């Protein structure tokens, strides 16, 4: 791997990281709230205000936890694993500046594995109390993850080929330096593949309906059905965070402009502002998409994921073979 270059060293860089982590944690519920709000408006409802998720989280943190008698220690640990792994991903993804020293700690492959770790933990947690819905949700979620993971790996690799590095910071930096490359079909197809995978992994329509508790269709909600109180809050927050991370990753890979190439205070603040705009726009796009799409029947989900796999495959062939 090519090490992270640039002048981002020392205290400044650490500050950028801290800022990024805080930003992600604080904004994530708001973005999900925004999606819900826009969706409600598009569907002709008034809808809860965008800051409703913050209220929910606050309420949940204040509530008592009820744990099933059948649950083992896994049930208790899982929310922390999920939250920690998602937060780690949030730190590794270049949101405000690129490249960063922390890039040395992990590249895209690490990101992929951290995401998988979270999925795995929540899948186990869904199985653990032995309730019917939890098991069903876990089985569905893990099926989807098994189909989505190879796509992420391929798409990421397609993006890594032109940059000559699997380092996310490098890839984003390279995209800023070579704007023409951002229009290349390989790049676009890889992004499209990632977008589909994002919908699947973040449990959005048309794969999963985050607003339903209808037993036949729910996936993510089924897994966390047994949780309450602080654990539920952590899991919800992690889910918000995951969505936010995916959106900002897509935003920065697709439209890298605005990401600071050196971690100066003003540049980073500008970058933060631009990031919020980009993510909000993408969130709005997701909302529009979700109002236009019905949830796919479950057996169509593998088909959708094979579309994204194919896109990633095409992306990698056109990145590799047209050099």
């Amino acid at each position: 791997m090519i090490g992270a270059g640039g002048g981002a060293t020392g205290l400044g860089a650490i500050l950028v990281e801290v800022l990024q982590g805080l930003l992600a944690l604080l904004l994530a519920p708001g973005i999900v709230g925004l999606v819900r709000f826009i969706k409600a408006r598009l569907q002709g409802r008034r809808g809860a205000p965008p800051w409703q998720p913050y209220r929910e989280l606050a309420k949940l943190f204040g509530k008592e936890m009820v744990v099933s008698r059948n649950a083992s220690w896994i049930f208790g640990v899982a929310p922390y694993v999920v939250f920690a792994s998602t937060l780690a991903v949030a730190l590794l993804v270049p949101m405000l500046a690129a490249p960063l020293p922390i890039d040395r700690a992990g590249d895209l492959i690490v990101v992929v594995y951290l995401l998988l770790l979270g999925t795995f933990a929540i899948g186990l947690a869904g199985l653990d109390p032995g309730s019917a819905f939890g098991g069903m949700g876990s089985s569905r979620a893990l099926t989807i993850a098994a189909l989505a993971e190879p796509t992420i790996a391929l798409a990421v690799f397609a993006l890594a080929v032109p940059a000559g590095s699997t380092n996310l910071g490098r890839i984003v930096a390279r995209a800023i330096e070579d704007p023409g490359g951002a229009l290349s079909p390989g790049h676009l197809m890889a992004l499209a593949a990632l977008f589909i995978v994002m919908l699947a992994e973040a449990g959005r329509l048309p794969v999963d309906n985050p607003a339903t508790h209808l037993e036949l269709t729910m996936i993510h909600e089924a897994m966390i059905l047994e949780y309450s109180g602080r654990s539920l809050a952590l899991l919800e927050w992690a889910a918000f965070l995951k969505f936010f991370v995916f959106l900002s990753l897509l935003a920065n890979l697709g439209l890298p402009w605005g990401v600071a190439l050196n971690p100066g205070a003003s540049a980073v603040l500008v970058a933060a502002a631009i990031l919020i705009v980009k993510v909000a726009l993408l969130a709005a796009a997701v909302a529009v998409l979700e109002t236009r799409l019905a949830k796919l029947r479950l057996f169509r989900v593998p088909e959708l994921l094979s579309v994204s796999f194919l896109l990633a495959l095409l992306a990698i062939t056109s990145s590799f073979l047209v050099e």
Partner: protein
Amino acid sequence: MSVEIFTTVMTLASSLVLLAGIAILWRRSLPAYIHAFARQSFFIVVAVLVLAARERDRELVLVALLMFALKVVFMPAALRRVQRHVGADADVRPYVNTPVSLAIAGILTLVAYAVAQPVVALSHLPTRGGMPLALASVFVGLFIVASRRSALSQIVGFLVMENGIALLAVLATYGVPLIVELGVFLDVLLGFLVMQVFVYRIRDAFETTDVDRLRSLRH
């Protein structure tokens, strides 16, 4: 227009052409097939127009206009009309399920890259990057014909294949000589019309357009 941007635009258009062809493998109704075909044709028209603008070539503008009239407007409309008349067979019932179809499309694309490799190596044109994609559309069209049962979806597959060839000609040689191009248009149009007539005849004789039912001659 700089060469880099021209290259990118042409390669992008070729990818969209291929993706529109692949979209058919994922869609499940004839109207969606027809729509994907119209969209694919439209991307080719755009590619031809971009090329015509760059080369200042009047013949290519004519080709693009003809293609627009024929493949974006007329043929989709005619197909929709036939589909409405033939009725119930809007469902396309492929022989191969969607994930496998998509996997095959991926393999076909890889094959197209392998086959087109000497062609790309020889070409000096900035459009050469799109040639494997055009060839892949030809293969995907062929696969659609082979894997679909309804006579109408086979026609769409044939047209997708035809589109791939048209794109290949544009990318590889900036268009074949006009006289040949016109002859090709005429043939495609006539062939299309004949096929359309036979869809009606198949429906009248067999009361379905499922060509799987056409098996009286297998001996």
